[in-house]
């Protein structure tokens, strides 16, 4: 996993874990790798991964079984999408709009690009 510059590491790890759930690699009630395994794999401090897990637990994306580990919640995907949408609207969209405005672009112009992108990447 490649860490970007802007976001706190524990949030970047949260995104990484959420991606595994959205891609269906981990399904509801699957146990996710242990804090230690993730820390070694991502080469980060286990306390940072712990913080990620607490954060995801707070949003009901994963749940904790004492002594066993963390598991994917029933409605994890839904909750991730909701959380991501909120964060996208709050953080990334303003920057995106700003660029559109500077380039004098309208939303209609984007549609064919978006359709093309969906076709070439997710079909």
């Amino acid at each position, binding site marked *: 996993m490649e860490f970007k510059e*802007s976001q706190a590491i524990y949030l970047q790890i949260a995104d990484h874990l959420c991606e595994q759930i959205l891609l269906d690699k981990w399904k509801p009630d699957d146990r996710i790798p242990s804090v*230690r395994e993730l820390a*070694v794999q991502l080469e980060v401090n286990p306390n940072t991964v712990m913080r990620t897990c607490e954060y995801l637990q707070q949003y009901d994306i994963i749940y904790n079984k004492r002594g066993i580990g963390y598991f994917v919640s029933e409605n994890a995907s839904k909750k991730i999408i909701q959380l991501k949408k909120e964060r996208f609207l709050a953080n990334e969209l303003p920057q995106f709009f700003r660029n559109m405005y500077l380039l004098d672009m309208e939303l209609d112009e984007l549609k064919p690009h978006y359709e093309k992108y969906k076709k070439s990447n997710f079909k």
Partner: protein
Amino acid sequence: MISIQNLSFSYRKNKPLFEGLDLNLEAGYIYGLLGKNGAGKSSLLKQMAGLLFPQGGVCKVMGYEARYRQPDFLRNLFMVPEEFYLPQVRINNYVKAYAPFYPDFSNTSFREYLEEFQIPTDQRLTEMSYGQKKKVLISFALATNTKALIMDEPTNGLDIPSKSQFRKVIAAAVSEEKCIVISTHQVRDLDNLIDNIVIIDNHKIIFRQDVDAVNDKLSFKTVSNVEDAGSVLYANSSLRGHAVVTENTDKEQSRIDMEMLFNAVLEQPERISKIFN
């Protein structure tokens, strides 16, 4: 775990290195000790290991005064110094000679660490390169399972792939009983491993915070205009814009840039300590 109170020390008269230095470190964390050249990082680590003695104050590790180097203290502390000597023997004989001093030494983990670092085990230690020797020593240090693990510039001399291996083995070694102290100039090698930042300057510890607190209180970002960034603590300009450290006013948590943090703390110690108190 490690408790230093009112420590004073100098190598030469009238040239104090530490004056009234206080520092408390707990188990379960990785402390990154940062400081300029000559600020006393290595000397402070040597105090913790009982290799230098306080001229005033006390340095205690697990309740033992380090200077007395009692057996129970030595059994539970390992230090990887920046400059070290390894005898002219093969790895097996090294383990035979030194492992018995450490009751919790694990030969299994030692072999695993050596394998992770891809160290050939049939060579004499003196026939190895500096980097390879260092990896042997780091592997041995981790395998001793001591409660206190002190490393002075551990990534110095390691090649690019072994820095990643180093991060993996350290991440695996963290436990609630263990206190790991690492001094470094190469903060980029270790910034995701360190969860507590300790900065030494001007004879004292001038900064000691965990990364959560830093995330909450400070913000690290790149802006196109320094004036827009609010109250800037430190700025560094490049082609991409101005990298700045500011007070975190909008609850957004940014990735900590330890080099920027270090520069900010050295330049604005009073403002920084105000923000954290």
